[in-house]
């Protein structure tokens, strides 16, 4: 599992290491991962329902299927490490420890939302939890995440910036300006490409001249690795290595998370550009939550009953969030004019 240089990756023809079996998690880690991923899953299912009921307007990009990426990465961080991402951000916020109520109420445009309803699904932040958004413009967060890393280096702390973006954003120009600057200045940033295989409705191979996105830093000397992003163990293992790489002063690194979103790009996308069989295959054979459940049961580290109890607890949190987000007051009209300037 050594972090391969792009040169080595290019020579071997692929940076993918999906066939390797990652190290086991402890029982507590498996259960925590199960719970954290399930919270995101149930939250997103509920958000989808509320959207269908007309309680959520605008855009709503669900994270279902990709849960292992943020949960595994979060397991490798320490306090003060920063997270920034694009518009498919609900999972990242929950993984960072932001409250379900505040996120859901932002989706429904209520005053109890993280941005008092002024941000919406794509624009939420928690400086307290070191979550810097939530950005709507594809790829825009990549220079910002690079700037977070610059600030860490300027201050001389050993914190790391986790800068997430998708396979679609990987073809935006500012990403490569950032790669160059980050390597030139040796900044502690992990670029995490969540390759869910479709940029909106266009498959990666139809949009990208080279489809192994882990090697996209090769022109700048940034190492990269492709990881099975459906397996939380693999994500955590590579995340820990990448975090250490950055903390040790080695500069930026790229992790390409091979993952899959079960839903359309947004709620308004019926996803007719792919087959039902393709989606079903991921759901039945690769699902990140079911993988953990199966391991916990096979190793007798937990029981059906105990896991059901976790699901019940998670559902209660999500139902409470939905209830709050449905009944909370709308923002006061005066909020229209607040926080434009200091």
């Amino acid at each position, binding site marked *: 599992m050594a972090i391969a240089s792009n040169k080595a990756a290019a020579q071997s023809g692929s940076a993918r290491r999906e066939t390797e079996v990652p190290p086991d998690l402890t029982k507590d880690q498996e259960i925590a991962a199960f719970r954290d991923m399930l919270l995101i899953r149930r939250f997103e299912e509920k958000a989808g329902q509320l959207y269908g009921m007309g309680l959520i307007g605008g855009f709503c990009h669900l994270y279902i299927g990709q849960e292992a990426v943020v949960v595994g990465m979060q397991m490798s961080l320490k306090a003060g490490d*920063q997270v920034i991402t694009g518009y498919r951000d609900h999972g990242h916020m929950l993984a960072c420890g932001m409250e379900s109520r505040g996120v859901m109420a932002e989706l429904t445009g209520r005053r109890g939302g993280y941005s008092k309803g002024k*941000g919406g699904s794509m624009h939420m932040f928690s400086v307290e939890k070191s979550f*810097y*958004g939530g950005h709507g413009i594809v790829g825009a967060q990549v*220079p910002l995440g690079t700037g977070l890393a610059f600030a860490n280096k300027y201050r001389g702390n050993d914190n790391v910036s986790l800068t997430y973006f998708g396979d679609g954003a990987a073809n935006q120009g500012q990403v490569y300006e950032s790669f*160059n600057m980050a390597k030139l200045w040796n900044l502690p940033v992990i670029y995490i490409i969540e390759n869910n295989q479709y940029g909106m409705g266009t498959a990666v191979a139809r949009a990208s001249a080279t489809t192994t996105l882990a090697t996209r830093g090769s022109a700048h000397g940034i190492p990269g690795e492709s990881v099975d992003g459906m397996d939380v163990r693999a994500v955590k293992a590579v995340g820990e290595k990448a975090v250490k790489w950055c903390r040790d002063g080695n500069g930026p690194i790229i992790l390409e998370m091979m993952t899959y979103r079960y839903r359309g790009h947004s709620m308004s996308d019926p996803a007719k550009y792919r087959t039902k069989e393709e989606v079903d295959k991921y759901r039945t054979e690769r699902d990140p939550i079911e993988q953990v459940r199966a391991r916990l049961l096979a190793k007798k580290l937990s029981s059906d009953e105990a896991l059901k109890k976790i699901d019940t607890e998670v559902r209660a949190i999500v139902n409470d969030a939905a209830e709050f987000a449905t009944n909370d007051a709308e923002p006061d009209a005066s909020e229209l004019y*607040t926080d434009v300037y200091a």
Partner: protein
Amino acid sequence: MAELTYRDAVARGIAQEMERDPDVVFLGEDVAGAGGVFKATVGLLDKFGPLRVRDTPISEQAILGAAMGAAMTGLKPIAEIMFSDFFAVCFDYIANEFPKSRYMSNGQLKCPLVVRTGNGAGSRFGAQHSQSVENWCMMIPGLKVVAPSNPRDVIGLMAAAVRDPDPVIFFEHKSLYATKGEVPDGEIVDRLGTATIARPGKDATILALALMVPRALAAAEKLKSEHGIDCEVVDVRSLVPLDTQTILGSVARTHRMFTVEENPRLCGWGAELASIVADEAFYDLDGPIVRITTPHIPLPAADLLEDIALPSVERIVDRVNKSMNA
């Protein structure tokens, strides 16, 4: 008190703030080792070292994005975009990221940064290196926009911009870098959102910005000596926030309003000021508001063409005189 060029005032203004606050970091293309393409930042690298004064790659989006990322954590970056025309290359950060972050985050995210840039014509650089784009920024809620016309204001407004908690776009005029002015010793701190009366007068108000201020002042002298028209010249200095009090007060005294704008005519900053005065002070006016601007054209490179495109002293004199005698 010492005489200083506008160019040297830039470096002194930045140095004043970097000495005061270790969170101020300065980055841009050719700003450190080369001292800036207009030599406006000479000496800063020697004074503050390569950690705080940083040459960047030619990557305008990464410059502004990294500056904002750092600002979100509490640093106070000053980022240079060499020519304001290049704002079009990195406009996502100027239009979508800096100015929206506070609003979209319920006030959690702060963006205390300054973008300095070389604005305006006069150097025969042609259509892509000569524009006055202050109106591009004025139209975006969440940005503050200043454009000093003299060395003292460069230092004072730079201090105000760096100390301001919001993103400030700081337009330096390329054709003013070599100009000189008296500057007091010691720290200079000005206020954003304040216009100054550069020349008092009783017959008409001329509102001007940046390079158009010295031209309006020269025109006012001629209008007085040759036509007996006594013009008040207001240096608008700050487009956002806008000092409407000083502007409306001047129009209330003189009863006439002229703008001298280097930006192309359509949606130039003077159109907004004309709208404000028409709304708030219509009955103070004794005649139509007249805007003297660059036409709605790309800027040419040839000496003769560039000279006739921009409002000149002669054009200002002619337009004001004709309108006052109409």
